[in-house]
């Protein structure tokens, strides 16, 4: 089955590109600096903790 070109274009422009830009922006901190090793490791720990906290809150409700 061939994908509808308009649907593909909509997905690319509305979802894909903003998503990729968001990821790139996340690396482009407000200072304009690229992230350091320490910042990357700290963010990983923060994100993991947030998943655990929100998940456990949902499981306990």
């Amino acid at each position, binding site marked *: 089955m061939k994908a509808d070109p308009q649907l593909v274009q909509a*997905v690319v*422009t509305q*979802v*894909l*590109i*903003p*998503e*990729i*830009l968001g*990821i*790139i*922006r996340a*690396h*482009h901190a407000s200072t*304009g*600096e*690229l*992230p*350091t*090793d*320490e910042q*990357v*490791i700290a*963010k*990983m*720990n923060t*994100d*993991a*903790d*947030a*998943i*655990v906290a*929100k*998940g*456990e809150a*949902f*499981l306990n409700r």
Partner: protein
Amino acid sequence: MKARSLLVSLVVALTVVACAHAPASVVTPQGKAAFAADQVLVRLQEAQNAVIVAATPDAAGHVSLPKPTADIIVSFTVEAAKAIKQTPNGWLAVVSSAWTSAKAKIPANVAAQAQGYILAIDTLLAGAGASPIPMPESNAALQQVIDDGERFLTGA
């Protein structure tokens, strides 16, 4: 509808950006592993949020995913986050195995409702083992990518 739209965005995003190279400023093996692991955590968090939204009753009290099924998936995300934090450079086998076990617990009568979320996490884990997408290696190159993308979006 909100849950479905979240899900479509999630699957597409996971397919393309499940894994990216660390920027040039990240130099240690620990930093590179943490960067790659965090890409997965960010997507895992999106999957978790989508499942929680789907299992939260709307104004009429309806849910698009039953709480017991959501609990199975959310429990997996919690355990996966713990495993990734503990071993950012060697979590994939453990988490993939945990996901296989979790999927097997989802009742057959809700398989259709859970199918999108299952696909999203399947895609995330497959992407985590795939070749990374190169990141621009300087601030100027990053800015160029952002500018090009915004020009494309606005048609300028």
